[in-house]
Protein backbone atom coordinates (compact mmCIF):
# COMPACT_ATOMS: atom_id res chain seq x y z
CA UNK A 1 0.00 0.00 0.00
CA UNK A 2 1.39 3.37 -0.98
CA UNK A 3 1.89 5.56 2.09
CA UNK A 4 -0.41 8.55 1.83
CA UNK A 5 -0.62 11.54 4.11
CA UNK A 6 -3.56 11.16 6.45
CA UNK A 7 -6.35 13.69 6.01
CA UNK A 8 -6.13 15.78 9.16
CA UNK A 9 -8.91 17.33 11.22
CA UNK A 10 -9.26 20.58 9.31
CA UNK A 11 -8.80 18.89 5.96
CA UNK A 12 -11.59 16.45 6.85
CA UNK A 13 -13.89 19.31 7.88
CA UNK A 14 -13.27 21.10 4.59
CA UNK A 15 -13.67 17.95 2.48
CA UNK A 16 -16.85 16.97 4.35
CA UNK A 17 -18.22 20.49 3.88
CA UNK A 18 -17.37 20.42 0.18
CA UNK A 19 -19.02 17.06 -0.40
CA UNK A 20 -22.09 17.96 1.66
CA UNK A 21 -22.50 21.27 -0.18
CA UNK A 22 -22.27 19.60 -3.57
CA UNK A 23 -24.71 16.87 -2.52
CA UNK A 24 -27.23 19.37 -1.16
CA UNK A 25 -26.89 21.55 -4.25
CA UNK A 26 -28.02 18.62 -6.41
CA UNK A 27 -31.41 18.49 -4.70
CA UNK A 28 -34.59 19.76 -6.33
CA UNK A 29 -35.19 21.90 -3.26
CA UNK A 30 -33.12 24.64 -4.89
CA UNK A 31 -35.74 25.23 -7.54
CA UNK A 32 -38.18 25.97 -4.72
CA UNK A 33 -35.61 28.29 -3.13
CA UNK A 34 -35.11 30.11 -6.42
CA UNK A 35 -38.87 30.46 -6.83
CA UNK A 36 -39.21 31.71 -3.25
CA UNK A 37 -36.59 34.40 -3.80
CA UNK A 38 -38.46 35.68 -6.85
CA UNK A 39 -41.68 35.46 -4.83
CA UNK A 40 -40.12 37.62 -2.11
CA UNK A 41 -39.22 40.25 -4.71
CA UNK A 42 -42.80 40.14 -5.99
CA UNK A 43 -44.32 40.30 -2.48
CA UNK A 44 -42.15 43.32 -1.63
CA UNK A 45 -43.03 45.09 -4.87
CA UNK A 46 -46.79 44.42 -4.62
CA UNK A 47 -47.02 45.42 -0.95
CA UNK A 48 -44.97 48.52 -1.67
CA UNK A 49 -47.49 49.53 -4.33
CA UNK A 50 -50.42 49.14 -1.91
CA UNK A 51 -48.74 50.69 1.10
CA UNK A 52 -50.98 52.91 3.19
CA UNK A 53 -50.03 56.22 4.75
CA UNK A 54 -49.56 54.84 8.27
CA UNK A 55 -46.49 52.76 7.44
CA UNK A 56 -43.44 53.68 5.46
CA UNK A 57 -41.32 51.40 3.26
CA UNK A 58 -38.55 50.87 5.80
CA UNK A 59 -40.95 49.78 8.56
CA UNK A 60 -42.71 47.39 6.21
CA UNK A 61 -39.37 45.93 5.13
CA UNK A 62 -38.36 45.43 8.79
CA UNK A 63 -41.64 43.74 9.64
CA UNK A 64 -41.57 41.40 6.62
CA UNK A 65 -37.86 40.67 6.98
CA UNK A 66 -38.32 39.77 10.62
CA UNK A 67 -41.68 38.05 10.85
CA UNK A 68 -41.79 36.35 7.45
CA UNK A 69 -38.18 35.75 6.54
CA UNK A 70 -36.46 35.73 9.94
CA UNK A 71 -38.90 33.69 11.98
CA UNK A 72 -40.38 31.38 9.33
CA UNK A 73 -38.35 30.96 6.14
CA UNK A 74 -34.76 31.06 7.42
CA UNK A 75 -35.28 28.79 10.48
CA UNK A 76 -37.23 26.18 8.57
CA UNK A 77 -34.89 26.19 5.62
CA UNK A 78 -31.80 25.77 7.82
CA UNK A 79 -33.44 23.10 9.96
CA UNK A 80 -34.78 21.16 6.99
CA UNK A 81 -31.51 21.22 5.05
CA UNK A 82 -29.52 20.42 8.20
CA UNK A 83 -31.71 17.44 9.00
CA UNK A 84 -31.46 16.29 5.38
CA UNK A 85 -27.68 16.50 5.45
CA UNK A 86 -27.11 14.65 8.73
CA UNK A 87 -30.18 12.66 9.72
CA UNK A 88 -31.05 11.83 6.11
CA UNK A 89 -27.71 10.19 5.50
CA UNK A 90 -27.94 8.30 8.80
CA UNK A 91 -31.40 7.00 7.95
CA UNK A 92 -30.54 5.89 4.42
CA UNK A 93 -27.20 4.59 5.77
CA UNK A 94 -25.04 6.48 3.29
CA UNK A 95 -23.26 8.00 6.30
CA UNK A 96 -21.85 4.54 7.02
CA UNK A 97 -19.66 4.79 3.91
CA UNK A 98 -18.01 7.79 5.59
CA UNK A 99 -17.76 6.07 8.98
CA UNK A 100 -15.66 3.36 7.28
CA UNK A 101 -12.95 5.88 6.37
CA UNK A 102 -9.93 6.59 8.56
CA UNK A 103 -11.24 9.97 9.67
CA UNK A 104 -13.04 11.04 12.83
CA UNK A 105 -16.77 11.52 12.99
CA UNK A 106 -16.43 14.92 14.64
CA UNK A 107 -14.81 16.65 11.63
CA UNK A 108 -17.33 14.93 9.36
CA UNK A 109 -20.18 16.41 11.37
CA UNK A 110 -18.57 19.82 11.58
CA UNK A 111 -18.18 19.72 7.82
CA UNK A 112 -21.90 19.00 7.50
CA UNK A 113 -22.70 21.93 9.76
CA UNK A 114 -20.37 24.22 7.84
CA UNK A 115 -22.03 23.28 4.54
CA UNK A 116 -25.55 23.77 5.91
CA UNK A 117 -24.49 27.06 7.50
CA UNK A 118 -23.05 28.40 4.26
CA UNK A 119 -26.10 27.43 2.21
CA UNK A 120 -28.61 28.65 4.80
CA UNK A 121 -26.76 31.92 5.36
CA UNK A 122 -26.67 32.46 1.60
CA UNK A 123 -30.42 31.91 1.40
CA UNK A 124 -30.94 34.24 4.36
CA UNK A 125 -28.93 37.00 2.68
CA UNK A 126 -30.47 36.49 -0.77
CA UNK A 127 -34.00 36.38 0.66
CA UNK A 128 -33.48 39.58 2.64
CA UNK A 129 -32.02 41.36 -0.36
CA UNK A 130 -34.85 40.07 -2.58
CA UNK A 131 -37.42 41.50 -0.20
CA UNK A 132 -35.53 44.78 -0.03
CA UNK A 133 -35.22 45.03 -3.81
CA UNK A 134 -38.97 44.40 -4.17
CA UNK A 135 -39.89 47.12 -1.68
CA UNK A 136 -37.24 49.55 -2.95
CA UNK A 137 -38.79 49.29 -6.41
CA UNK A 138 -41.36 51.77 -5.03
CA UNK A 139 -39.03 54.48 -3.63
CA UNK A 140 -41.90 56.95 -3.20
CA UNK A 141 -43.15 55.05 -0.11
CA UNK A 142 -39.78 55.29 1.69
CA UNK A 143 -40.51 58.56 3.46
CA UNK A 144 -36.91 58.99 4.72
CA UNK A 145 -35.34 57.69 1.53
CA UNK A 146 -34.19 54.16 0.64
CA UNK A 147 -31.38 53.14 2.98
CA UNK A 148 -29.45 49.98 2.07
CA UNK A 149 -28.00 49.88 5.59
CA UNK A 150 -31.17 48.37 7.03
CA UNK A 151 -31.10 45.54 4.48
CA UNK A 152 -27.52 44.68 5.38
CA UNK A 153 -28.37 44.66 9.11
CA UNK A 154 -31.13 42.14 8.51
CA UNK A 155 -29.07 40.14 6.03
CA UNK A 156 -26.15 39.89 8.44
CA UNK A 157 -28.32 39.09 11.46
CA UNK A 158 -30.36 36.46 9.67
CA UNK A 159 -27.20 34.92 8.23
CA UNK A 160 -25.93 34.51 11.80
CA UNK A 161 -29.32 33.09 12.72
CA UNK A 162 -29.04 30.59 9.88
CA UNK A 163 -25.68 29.44 11.24
CA UNK A 164 -27.26 28.91 14.67
CA UNK A 165 -30.29 27.09 13.24
CA UNK A 166 -27.90 24.87 11.27
CA UNK A 167 -26.18 23.97 14.54
CA UNK A 168 -29.56 23.13 16.10
CA UNK A 169 -30.45 20.95 13.09
CA UNK A 170 -27.15 19.10 13.35
CA UNK A 171 -27.70 18.55 17.07
CA UNK A 172 -31.25 17.21 16.68
CA UNK A 173 -30.14 14.99 13.79
CA UNK A 174 -27.29 13.47 15.77
CA UNK A 175 -29.17 13.08 19.03
CA UNK A 176 -32.77 12.07 18.32
CA UNK A 177 -34.66 9.88 15.89
CA UNK A 178 -37.27 12.43 14.86
CA UNK A 179 -35.23 15.60 14.50
CA UNK A 180 -37.82 17.63 12.57
CA UNK A 181 -40.41 17.07 15.32
CA UNK A 182 -37.92 18.27 17.93
CA UNK A 183 -36.94 21.16 15.69
CA UNK A 184 -40.61 22.16 15.47
CA UNK A 185 -40.85 22.02 19.24
CA UNK A 186 -37.73 24.17 19.49
CA UNK A 187 -38.87 26.82 17.00
CA UNK A 188 -42.58 26.96 17.74
CA UNK A 189 -42.56 25.86 21.38
CA UNK A 190 -39.43 26.86 23.24
CA UNK A 191 -38.72 30.04 21.31
CA UNK A 192 -42.28 31.35 21.46
CA UNK A 193 -42.53 30.46 25.15
CA UNK A 194 -39.38 32.35 26.03
CA UNK A 195 -40.45 35.32 23.92
CA UNK A 196 -42.95 36.07 26.67
CA UNK A 197 -40.50 35.76 29.53
CA UNK A 198 -38.93 38.84 31.18
CA UNK A 199 -35.92 40.29 29.40
CA UNK A 200 -33.65 39.17 32.21
CA UNK A 201 -34.75 35.51 31.98
CA UNK A 202 -31.75 33.22 31.48
CA UNK A 203 -33.80 30.84 29.34
CA UNK A 204 -33.73 33.41 26.57
CA UNK A 205 -30.11 32.48 26.01
CA UNK A 206 -31.19 29.03 24.87
CA UNK A 207 -33.06 30.47 21.91
CA UNK A 208 -31.91 31.91 18.63
CA UNK A 209 -34.68 34.45 18.07
CA UNK A 210 -33.88 36.45 21.16
CA UNK A 211 -30.24 37.35 20.43
CA UNK A 212 -31.14 37.83 16.77
CA UNK A 213 -33.88 40.29 17.65
CA UNK A 214 -31.48 42.22 19.85
CA UNK A 215 -28.93 42.22 17.08
CA UNK A 216 -31.46 43.62 14.62
CA UNK A 217 -32.74 46.25 17.02
CA UNK A 218 -29.18 47.32 17.85
CA UNK A 219 -28.45 47.70 14.15
CA UNK A 220 -31.50 49.54 12.90
CA UNK A 221 -32.14 51.81 15.92
CA UNK A 222 -35.92 51.69 15.51
CA UNK A 223 -38.41 54.20 16.78
CA UNK A 224 -40.60 53.03 19.66
CA UNK A 225 -43.45 51.91 17.38
CA UNK A 226 -41.25 49.73 15.19
CA UNK A 227 -39.46 48.32 18.24
CA UNK A 228 -42.85 47.39 19.63
CA UNK A 229 -43.83 45.74 16.36
CA UNK A 230 -40.65 43.67 16.24
CA UNK A 231 -40.51 42.90 19.96
CA UNK A 232 -44.06 43.06 21.24
CA UNK A 233 -43.49 41.30 24.55
CA UNK A 234 -42.00 44.25 26.37
CA UNK A 235 -40.31 47.58 26.01
CA UNK A 236 -36.91 47.36 24.38
CA UNK A 237 -34.32 47.64 27.15
CA UNK A 238 -30.91 47.00 25.67
CA UNK A 239 -29.08 47.89 28.87
CA UNK A 240 -30.60 44.86 30.68
CA UNK A 241 -29.34 42.20 28.30
CA UNK A 242 -26.01 40.79 27.15
CA UNK A 243 -24.19 40.93 23.84
CA UNK A 244 -26.29 39.07 21.28
CA UNK A 245 -23.30 37.80 19.30
CA UNK A 246 -21.79 36.27 22.42
CA UNK A 247 -25.12 34.64 23.29
CA UNK A 248 -25.39 33.20 19.79
CA UNK A 249 -21.79 32.01 19.88
CA UNK A 250 -22.43 30.22 23.18
CA UNK A 251 -25.56 28.59 21.83
CA UNK A 252 -23.81 27.44 18.65
CA UNK A 253 -20.77 26.22 20.59
CA UNK A 254 -22.71 24.24 23.19
CA UNK A 255 -25.05 22.79 20.57
CA UNK A 256 -22.17 21.67 18.37
CA UNK A 257 -20.26 20.13 21.28
CA UNK A 258 -23.34 18.12 22.26
CA UNK A 259 -23.99 17.16 18.64
CA UNK A 260 -20.41 15.96 18.21
CA UNK A 261 -20.61 13.99 21.43
CA UNK A 262 -23.74 12.14 20.29
CA UNK A 263 -22.45 11.65 16.75
CA UNK A 264 -19.15 10.24 17.93
CA UNK A 265 -20.49 7.72 20.41
CA UNK A 266 -23.76 6.52 18.88
CA UNK A 267 -23.84 3.18 17.07
CA UNK A 268 -26.28 4.38 14.46
CA UNK A 269 -26.38 1.11 12.63
CA UNK A 270 -27.39 -0.76 15.78
CA UNK A 271 -30.49 1.26 16.52
CA UNK A 272 -33.80 -0.10 15.28
CA UNK A 273 -35.20 1.55 12.15
CA UNK A 274 -38.77 2.75 11.96
Amino acid sequence: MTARPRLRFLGTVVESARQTTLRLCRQRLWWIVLGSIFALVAVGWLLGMRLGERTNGQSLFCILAWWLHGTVLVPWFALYVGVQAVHGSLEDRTALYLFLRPVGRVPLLLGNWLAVSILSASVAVLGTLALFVGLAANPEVWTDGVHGHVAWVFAGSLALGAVAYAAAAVFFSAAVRRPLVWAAFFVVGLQQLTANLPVSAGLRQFTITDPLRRLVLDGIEPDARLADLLWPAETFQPEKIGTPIVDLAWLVGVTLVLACWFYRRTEYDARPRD
Partner: protein
Amino acid sequence: MSMARSLPATGMLAFEHVTKWYGPVAALTDVTFSVGCEVVGLVGKNGVGKSTLMKLAVGLLQPSQGKVQVAGHAAHTRQARTLVGFCPDFETLYEDLTGATFVSWMLRFHGFSPSAARARAQAVLDQLGLGPHMHRAIREYSKGMRQRVRLAQALAHEPQFVLLDEPMTGLDPVARSQLSEIIRNLPSLGVGVLVSSHVLHELAAVVDRVVLVHQGRLLADGKVAELRASMPTQPHRLRIVVADARNLATVLVGWPEVHSVVVQTDGLEVAIGGEGSFYAQLTRLAATWPQPIEAVAPLDDDLASVFGYLVG
Protein backbone atom coordinates in the same frame (compact mmCIF):
# COMPACT_ATOMS: atom_id res chain seq x y z
CA MET B 1 -5.52 -4.58 -8.91
CA SER B 2 -2.44 -3.76 -6.89
CA MET B 3 -2.69 -4.71 -3.28
CA ALA B 4 -0.19 -4.78 -0.43
CA ARG B 5 1.64 -7.74 1.04
CA SER B 6 3.17 -6.41 4.19
CA LEU B 7 1.06 -8.11 6.86
CA PRO B 8 1.65 -11.58 8.29
CA ALA B 9 -0.49 -14.28 6.73
CA THR B 10 -2.31 -15.17 9.92
CA GLY B 11 -4.48 -13.25 12.29
CA MET B 12 -5.12 -10.24 10.05
CA LEU B 13 -8.62 -10.08 11.51
CA ALA B 14 -9.04 -11.52 14.99
CA PHE B 15 -12.16 -11.92 17.12
CA GLU B 16 -11.34 -12.78 20.73
CA HIS B 17 -14.26 -13.85 22.92
CA VAL B 18 -16.48 -11.23 21.36
CA THR B 19 -19.96 -10.69 22.73
CA LYS B 20 -22.33 -8.04 21.44
CA TRP B 21 -25.53 -7.03 23.19
CA TYR B 22 -28.33 -4.92 21.75
CA GLY B 23 -30.03 -3.93 24.97
CA PRO B 24 -31.14 -7.22 26.52
CA VAL B 25 -30.59 -9.23 23.32
CA ALA B 26 -27.27 -10.99 22.71
CA ALA B 27 -26.52 -10.76 18.99
CA LEU B 28 -23.18 -12.55 19.33
CA THR B 29 -21.90 -14.62 22.22
CA ASP B 30 -18.25 -15.41 22.92
CA VAL B 31 -17.12 -15.57 19.30
CA THR B 32 -13.45 -16.34 18.71
CA PHE B 33 -11.82 -16.86 15.33
CA SER B 34 -9.21 -15.28 13.11
CA VAL B 35 -8.74 -14.76 9.40
CA GLY B 36 -5.40 -14.48 7.66
CA CYS B 37 -4.46 -13.92 4.05
CA GLU B 38 -7.16 -16.26 2.76
CA VAL B 39 -10.79 -16.30 1.72
CA VAL B 40 -13.09 -17.25 4.56
CA GLY B 41 -16.81 -17.75 4.14
CA LEU B 42 -19.21 -16.53 6.79
CA VAL B 43 -22.26 -18.76 6.80
CA GLY B 44 -25.45 -18.63 8.81
CA LYS B 45 -29.19 -18.17 8.53
CA ASN B 46 -30.76 -14.72 8.45
CA GLY B 47 -30.66 -12.93 11.79
CA VAL B 48 -28.00 -15.09 13.42
CA GLY B 49 -25.48 -12.27 13.73
CA LYS B 50 -23.55 -12.31 10.44
CA SER B 51 -24.05 -8.62 9.71
CA THR B 52 -23.33 -7.72 13.34
CA LEU B 53 -20.10 -9.67 13.08
CA MET B 54 -19.16 -7.81 9.89
CA LYS B 55 -19.95 -4.42 11.40
CA LEU B 56 -17.85 -5.27 14.45
CA ALA B 57 -14.99 -6.16 12.13
CA VAL B 58 -15.11 -2.77 10.40
CA GLY B 59 -15.60 -0.81 13.60
CA LEU B 60 -19.14 0.39 12.92
CA LEU B 61 -20.11 -1.39 16.15
CA GLN B 62 -18.00 -2.00 19.21
CA PRO B 63 -18.06 -5.27 21.15
CA SER B 64 -19.80 -5.37 24.53
CA GLN B 65 -17.09 -7.80 25.63
CA GLY B 66 -13.93 -9.14 24.01
CA LYS B 67 -11.71 -7.68 21.32
CA VAL B 68 -11.90 -7.27 17.57
CA GLN B 69 -8.56 -6.46 16.00
CA VAL B 70 -7.29 -5.78 12.52
CA ALA B 71 -3.55 -6.32 12.18
CA GLY B 72 -3.16 -5.67 15.89
CA HIS B 73 -5.27 -2.49 15.95
CA ALA B 74 -8.72 -2.30 17.57
CA ALA B 75 -11.22 -2.42 14.69
CA HIS B 76 -12.77 0.97 15.42
CA THR B 77 -9.47 2.87 15.23
CA ARG B 78 -8.28 4.90 12.25
CA GLN B 79 -5.29 2.61 11.76
CA ALA B 80 -7.60 -0.38 11.37
CA ARG B 81 -9.98 1.49 9.06
CA THR B 82 -7.07 2.34 6.79
CA LEU B 83 -6.47 -1.38 6.32
CA VAL B 84 -10.05 -2.53 5.82
CA GLY B 85 -12.54 -2.34 2.97
CA PHE B 86 -16.20 -3.17 3.46
CA CYS B 87 -18.88 -3.91 0.90
CA PRO B 88 -22.15 -3.64 2.84
CA ASP B 89 -25.35 -5.51 2.10
CA PHE B 90 -27.63 -2.48 1.98
CA GLU B 91 -28.76 -0.93 -1.27
CA THR B 92 -28.33 2.77 -0.72
CA LEU B 93 -25.68 4.93 -2.35
CA TYR B 94 -25.44 8.63 -3.15
CA GLU B 95 -28.04 8.47 -5.91
CA ASP B 96 -27.27 11.86 -7.47
CA LEU B 97 -23.56 11.21 -7.89
CA THR B 98 -21.86 9.32 -10.68
CA GLY B 99 -20.12 6.07 -9.80
CA ALA B 100 -16.72 7.67 -10.43
CA THR B 101 -17.49 10.69 -8.25
CA PHE B 102 -18.78 8.56 -5.39
CA VAL B 103 -15.69 6.36 -5.28
CA SER B 104 -13.31 9.31 -5.65
CA TRP B 105 -15.09 11.17 -2.82
CA MET B 106 -14.57 8.17 -0.55
CA LEU B 107 -10.91 8.03 -1.56
CA ARG B 108 -10.39 11.66 -0.56
CA PHE B 109 -10.90 10.61 3.07
CA HIS B 110 -8.08 8.08 2.67
CA GLY B 111 -5.65 10.88 1.89
CA PHE B 112 -5.78 10.66 -1.91
CA SER B 113 -5.32 14.01 -3.66
CA PRO B 114 -8.28 15.04 -5.88
CA SER B 115 -6.53 14.01 -9.09
CA ALA B 116 -5.18 10.75 -7.61
CA ALA B 117 -8.63 9.92 -6.23
CA ARG B 118 -10.26 10.47 -9.63
CA ALA B 119 -7.64 8.37 -11.42
CA ARG B 120 -7.80 5.55 -8.88
CA ALA B 121 -11.62 5.51 -8.84
CA GLN B 122 -11.75 5.28 -12.62
CA ALA B 123 -9.14 2.52 -12.68
CA VAL B 124 -11.00 0.38 -10.13
CA LEU B 125 -14.40 0.91 -11.75
CA ASP B 126 -12.84 0.01 -15.07
CA GLN B 127 -11.44 -3.21 -13.59
CA LEU B 128 -14.86 -4.08 -12.21
CA GLY B 129 -16.44 -3.67 -15.63
CA LEU B 130 -18.18 -0.38 -15.02
CA GLY B 131 -15.91 1.65 -17.29
CA PRO B 132 -18.48 2.76 -19.88
CA HIS B 133 -21.04 3.72 -17.21
CA MET B 134 -18.90 5.29 -14.49
CA HIS B 135 -19.91 8.85 -15.43
CA ARG B 136 -23.65 8.20 -15.26
CA ALA B 137 -25.69 9.02 -12.14
CA ILE B 138 -25.95 6.08 -9.74
CA ARG B 139 -29.75 6.35 -9.72
CA GLU B 140 -29.68 5.14 -13.34
CA TYR B 141 -27.67 2.01 -12.48
CA SER B 142 -28.98 -1.55 -12.46
CA LYS B 143 -28.72 -3.63 -9.30
CA GLY B 144 -25.56 -5.31 -10.55
CA MET B 145 -23.92 -2.01 -11.43
CA ARG B 146 -24.73 -0.63 -7.98
CA GLN B 147 -23.15 -3.70 -6.44
CA ARG B 148 -19.97 -3.05 -8.44
CA VAL B 149 -19.87 0.53 -7.14
CA ARG B 150 -20.12 -0.78 -3.59
CA LEU B 151 -17.31 -3.21 -4.34
CA ALA B 152 -15.23 -0.46 -5.90
CA GLN B 153 -15.44 1.74 -2.81
CA ALA B 154 -14.37 -1.26 -0.71
CA LEU B 155 -11.35 -2.08 -2.87
CA ALA B 156 -10.23 1.30 -4.21
CA HIS B 157 -8.04 2.36 -1.28
CA GLU B 158 -6.01 -0.86 -1.55
CA PRO B 159 -7.06 -2.40 1.74
CA GLN B 160 -5.26 -5.36 3.27
CA PHE B 161 -8.47 -6.95 4.42
CA VAL B 162 -11.84 -6.92 2.72
CA LEU B 163 -15.25 -7.82 4.14
CA LEU B 164 -17.96 -8.57 1.61
CA ASP B 165 -21.53 -8.86 2.89
CA GLU B 166 -23.64 -10.74 0.34
CA PRO B 167 -21.54 -9.49 -2.60
CA MET B 168 -23.25 -11.75 -5.17
CA THR B 169 -26.67 -10.20 -4.61
CA GLY B 170 -28.11 -8.73 -7.77
CA LEU B 171 -25.29 -9.86 -10.04
CA ASP B 172 -25.96 -11.77 -13.26
CA PRO B 173 -24.16 -15.11 -13.80
CA VAL B 174 -21.32 -13.55 -15.77
CA ALA B 175 -20.76 -10.89 -13.14
CA ARG B 176 -20.92 -13.52 -10.39
CA SER B 177 -18.26 -15.52 -12.14
CA GLN B 178 -16.08 -12.40 -12.55
CA LEU B 179 -16.54 -11.47 -8.91
CA SER B 180 -15.69 -15.01 -7.79
CA GLU B 181 -12.49 -14.74 -9.81
CA ILE B 182 -11.64 -11.40 -8.20
CA ILE B 183 -12.28 -12.77 -4.71
CA ARG B 184 -10.20 -15.89 -5.38
CA ASN B 185 -7.28 -13.75 -6.56
CA LEU B 186 -7.23 -11.37 -3.60
CA PRO B 187 -5.15 -13.60 -1.24
CA SER B 188 -2.43 -13.89 -3.90
CA LEU B 189 -2.24 -10.08 -3.76
CA GLY B 190 -1.84 -10.12 0.00
CA VAL B 191 -5.47 -9.35 0.80
CA GLY B 192 -7.51 -11.37 3.29
CA VAL B 193 -11.23 -11.75 2.64
CA LEU B 194 -14.25 -12.51 4.82
CA VAL B 195 -17.29 -13.05 2.62
CA SER B 196 -20.86 -13.91 3.49
CA SER B 197 -23.38 -15.23 1.02
CA HIS B 198 -26.64 -17.11 0.90
CA VAL B 199 -25.55 -18.77 -2.35
CA LEU B 200 -23.65 -21.54 -0.66
CA HIS B 201 -22.42 -23.39 -3.73
CA GLU B 202 -20.89 -20.18 -5.07
CA LEU B 203 -19.40 -19.42 -1.70
CA ALA B 204 -17.94 -22.92 -1.52
CA ALA B 205 -16.23 -22.32 -4.87
CA VAL B 206 -14.24 -19.34 -3.60
CA VAL B 207 -13.53 -19.93 0.09
CA ASP B 208 -10.59 -21.66 1.72
CA ARG B 209 -12.61 -22.32 4.84
CA VAL B 210 -15.88 -21.36 6.46
CA VAL B 211 -16.97 -19.86 9.74
CA LEU B 212 -20.48 -20.96 10.63
CA VAL B 213 -22.54 -18.79 12.97
CA HIS B 214 -25.79 -19.93 14.52
CA GLN B 215 -27.91 -18.13 17.10
CA GLY B 216 -25.09 -15.72 17.81
CA ARG B 217 -22.51 -18.39 18.46
CA LEU B 218 -19.65 -19.74 16.42
CA LEU B 219 -20.81 -23.23 15.49
CA ALA B 220 -17.94 -24.35 13.28
CA ASP B 221 -14.70 -23.06 11.80
CA GLY B 222 -12.67 -24.98 9.23
CA LYS B 223 -12.48 -26.39 5.72
CA VAL B 224 -15.72 -27.86 4.43
CA ALA B 225 -14.29 -31.35 4.05
CA GLU B 226 -12.83 -31.25 7.56
CA LEU B 227 -16.14 -30.12 9.01
CA ARG B 228 -17.95 -32.92 7.18
CA ALA B 229 -15.42 -35.46 8.42
CA SER B 230 -15.88 -34.23 11.97
CA MET B 231 -19.48 -35.44 11.99
CA PRO B 232 -19.03 -39.24 12.30
CA THR B 233 -22.53 -39.79 13.64
CA GLN B 234 -24.06 -38.15 10.56
CA PRO B 235 -24.41 -40.80 7.79
CA HIS B 236 -22.77 -39.92 4.48
CA ARG B 237 -25.01 -40.11 1.45
CA LEU B 238 -23.63 -41.54 -1.79
CA ARG B 239 -25.00 -41.97 -5.25
CA ILE B 240 -23.91 -45.16 -7.05
CA VAL B 241 -24.61 -45.32 -10.78
CA VAL B 242 -25.00 -48.95 -11.89
CA ALA B 243 -27.25 -50.79 -14.36
CA ASP B 244 -28.60 -53.52 -12.03
CA ALA B 245 -29.28 -51.29 -9.09
CA ARG B 246 -31.81 -53.62 -7.47
CA ASN B 247 -29.34 -56.54 -7.27
CA LEU B 248 -26.61 -54.34 -5.85
CA ALA B 249 -29.04 -52.98 -3.28
CA THR B 250 -29.80 -56.46 -1.96
CA VAL B 251 -26.08 -56.96 -1.34
CA LEU B 252 -25.44 -53.57 0.21
CA VAL B 253 -28.27 -53.72 2.77
CA GLY B 254 -26.46 -56.61 4.42
CA TRP B 255 -23.34 -54.56 5.11
CA PRO B 256 -23.07 -53.20 8.66
CA GLU B 257 -21.89 -49.74 7.48
CA VAL B 258 -24.98 -49.23 5.33
CA HIS B 259 -27.83 -47.39 7.06
CA SER B 260 -30.25 -47.23 4.16
CA VAL B 261 -30.50 -47.87 0.43
CA VAL B 262 -32.91 -46.20 -1.98
CA VAL B 263 -33.23 -47.74 -5.45
CA GLN B 264 -33.57 -45.24 -8.28
CA THR B 265 -33.99 -45.69 -12.04
CA ASP B 266 -30.31 -45.51 -12.87
CA GLY B 267 -28.64 -46.31 -9.60
CA LEU B 268 -28.79 -46.21 -5.81
CA GLU B 269 -28.70 -43.63 -3.08
CA VAL B 270 -26.92 -45.11 -0.07
CA ALA B 271 -26.50 -43.74 3.46
CA ILE B 272 -23.40 -45.11 5.18
CA GLY B 273 -21.63 -44.93 8.52
CA GLY B 274 -17.90 -45.80 8.46
CA GLU B 275 -16.65 -44.42 5.15
CA GLY B 276 -13.26 -46.15 4.97
CA SER B 277 -14.41 -49.74 5.37
CA PHE B 278 -17.40 -49.17 3.08
CA TYR B 279 -15.24 -47.92 0.23
CA ALA B 280 -12.76 -50.79 0.68
CA GLN B 281 -15.59 -53.34 0.48
CA LEU B 282 -17.23 -51.59 -2.45
CA THR B 283 -13.93 -51.58 -4.38
CA ARG B 284 -13.58 -55.33 -3.85
CA LEU B 285 -17.18 -55.88 -4.86
CA ALA B 286 -16.86 -53.73 -7.99
CA ALA B 287 -14.02 -55.93 -9.24
CA THR B 288 -16.30 -58.99 -9.31
CA TRP B 289 -19.70 -57.39 -9.97
CA PRO B 290 -21.18 -58.46 -13.34
CA GLN B 291 -22.28 -54.96 -14.34
CA PRO B 292 -19.83 -52.03 -14.27
CA ILE B 293 -20.26 -49.56 -11.40
CA GLU B 294 -20.09 -46.37 -13.45
CA ALA B 295 -19.83 -43.75 -10.70
CA VAL B 296 -19.76 -43.28 -6.94
CA ALA B 297 -20.38 -39.70 -5.91
CA PRO B 298 -20.86 -38.18 -2.46
CA LEU B 299 -24.13 -36.26 -2.13
CA ASP B 300 -23.49 -34.36 1.09
CA ASP B 301 -19.87 -33.25 1.19
CA ASP B 302 -20.73 -29.79 -0.03
CA LEU B 303 -21.13 -26.65 2.03
CA ALA B 304 -24.92 -26.66 1.82
CA SER B 305 -25.12 -30.16 3.28
CA VAL B 306 -22.63 -29.41 6.03
CA PHE B 307 -24.56 -26.26 6.85
CA GLY B 308 -27.82 -28.22 6.90
CA TYR B 309 -26.42 -30.91 9.21
CA LEU B 310 -24.94 -28.38 11.61
CA VAL B 311 -27.90 -26.08 12.02
CA GLY B 312 -30.60 -28.68 11.52
